[in-house]
């Protein structure tokens, strides 16, 4: 291994410092004894204890998890189907348009997505609540799922599906018995990505949530406007850990499984 040059070492340190010092400070102050956020008064976990007593936060957390689970599951189903049709569907009318449109929400400003969804929900007279947040999150996270899944499908050897058809599978059986098990790692990491995105989202949720349902990011945001409390620091620390675990799991699953499956597939396909 080459030793790192001093220039690279400094750049790396600065880069990571830039990214992580704010979060480290937040985590440290979540263990602060004092009620004043900027004054260190010794180590304590009392804010975590108080957090557990706070009904409003717990409710918001429960709503957030419900929304994340439902929306990421729906997004995974829809995104996988969309990816499958776009990669495998062959040429059909408007294919290019559709594949462009599936990526459009990726670059669309969230404010616009949120606003248009709000107008839609008002237009059709849907009361804003958990359902509308789930629908909104499904809408924007399914394109992420479809990007992840279609990049896997592109490298998928088509003759495997043809072999399944040839051996007596209907197209649906071929998908269920051959395609899905092989692309499963990509589908799982797509789900984890959608889950994390839904957990984080503030902008779209604030457009589509109603008085009956508030997600955690909205709760935190509005609480912070009244001043940062150590309780929020504690809550944020918990969220950071959840998201970190989620992202690390997703990338590990993807890395290991995709690499292994690809190796197996290539080995199976060619000597």
């Amino acid at each position: 291994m080459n030793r790192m040059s001093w220039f690279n070492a400094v750049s790396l340190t600065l880069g990571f410092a830039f990214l992580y010092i704010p979060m480290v400070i937040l985590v440290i102050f979540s263990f602060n004894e004092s009620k004043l956020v900027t004054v260190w008064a010794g180590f304590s976990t009392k804010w975590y204890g108080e957090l557990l007593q706070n009904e409003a936060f717990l409710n918001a957390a429960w709503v957030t998890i419900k929304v994340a689970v439902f929306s990421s599951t729906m997004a995974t189903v829809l995104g996988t189907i969309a990816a499958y049709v776009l990669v495998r569907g062959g040429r059909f009318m408007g294919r290019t348009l559709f594949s462009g449109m599936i990526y459009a929400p990726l670059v669309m400003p969230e404010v616009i997505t949120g606003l248009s969804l709000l107008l839609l929900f008002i237009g059709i007279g849907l009361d804003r609540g958990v359902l509308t947040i789930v629908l909104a999150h499904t809408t924007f996270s399914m394109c992420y799922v479809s990007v992840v899944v279609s990049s896997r499908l592109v490298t998928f050897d088509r003759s495997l599906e043809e072999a399944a058809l040839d051996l007596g599978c209907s197209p649906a059986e071929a998908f269920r018995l051959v395609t899905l098990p092989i692309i499963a790692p990509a589908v799982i990491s797509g789900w984890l990505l959608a889950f994390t995105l839904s957990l984080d989202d503030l902008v779209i949720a604030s457009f589509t949530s109603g008085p009956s349902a508030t997600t955690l990011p909205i709760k935190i945001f509005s609480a912070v406007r009244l001043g940062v409390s150590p309780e929020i620091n504690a809550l944020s620390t918990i969220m950071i850990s959840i998201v970190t675990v989620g992202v690390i799991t997703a990338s590990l699953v993807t890395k290991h499984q995709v690499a292994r499956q690809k190796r197996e597939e290539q080995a199976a396909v060619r000597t």
Partner: protein
Amino acid sequence: MTASVFEPWNDPEAKPLIHFQNVTKRYGEFTAIDNLTIDIYEREFYALLGPSGCGKTTLMRMLAGFETPTEGKIFLAGQDIAPVPPNKRAVNMMFQSYALFPHLSIWENIAFGLKRERMPKHDINDRVEEMLRLTRLEKFARRKPHQISGGQRQRVALARSLAKHPKLLLLDEPLGALDKKLRQDTQFELMDIQEKTGTTFVIVTHDQEEAMTVASRVAVMDHGKIIQVATPDRIYENPNSVYVADFIGDVNLIEGTAKLNGSEAYAMSWHEGHAPLTVKSPVAFSDGQKCHLAIRPEKVSISAEKPADADNAVQGRILDIAYLGNISTYHVELPTGAVIKAQTANTRRIARRAFTWEDTVWLSWTATAGVLLAD
């Protein structure tokens, strides 16, 4: 051994298993298959041979059901199969890439098609065991495809496609991924399995040696058309066109004009100042018609002196010698500038070879050695 020779294509009573009737397949402007009519009989080992892009794979994919003909009909055992989807056809395919399911074990790969048929469990067991025995894979049943060698994977693919007792087995370049030695062994294994199971095999290949080895009949294709269908020996000895003669094996082509000279014999003038060549041909040529004499290098003899009683003899100079161990090919340049290849078996050690570079030699062949082909 059966006393009668297996050649149902010569029997007017025999019903073909597969009948292509004026089949055409177009992709936009490109015609992949051009008004093609062929018959394939039961128990045949039928090879589709041709350069890449000649339409042989398209033809096979139409049989499997992955492509539908633009025009014409395909009959399998008398039934038009155009409306039958691939999963309902009594046809199985062995893919060029083998397409083994990476997430399933060898055993499950072979059982895959049987399970789709809702076969009782112990019947599936028996059939899979039988296929494993046939392909000598018993020891590998529990392994995954990436844990076995290329030759073993090829046998798994074969076992999987044979497990369902197809009426017809399609093999798409089945041995392309194997090295030469393994390929030769596997060719004989394939023939053996075909004979044991009595299944009709259609094989697609661009390797003419492979087609000649395994097939009962070879169909040579070019640009979506069948040029010639015949047994390997007839394809080699009696090609019906310059294309087939040139595609199969090595050949010398001499251009000239024909002139009738006795019964089924022609004098072919090929170059001014040289005596015309004597050729026997059952195919009739009119006087002055342009033609090609196709003659295989191993049918041309090479000698130092002019042979006394040869039908044809020409003199030339050795340009090049290709030494292949068992045989040597001499490239001999004639005074006309044309180069004729002559092949001899190296029955003696190389140190005692009679000819070397730049030697003047005589090439000779009999009147029946070559085939006269129309332009």
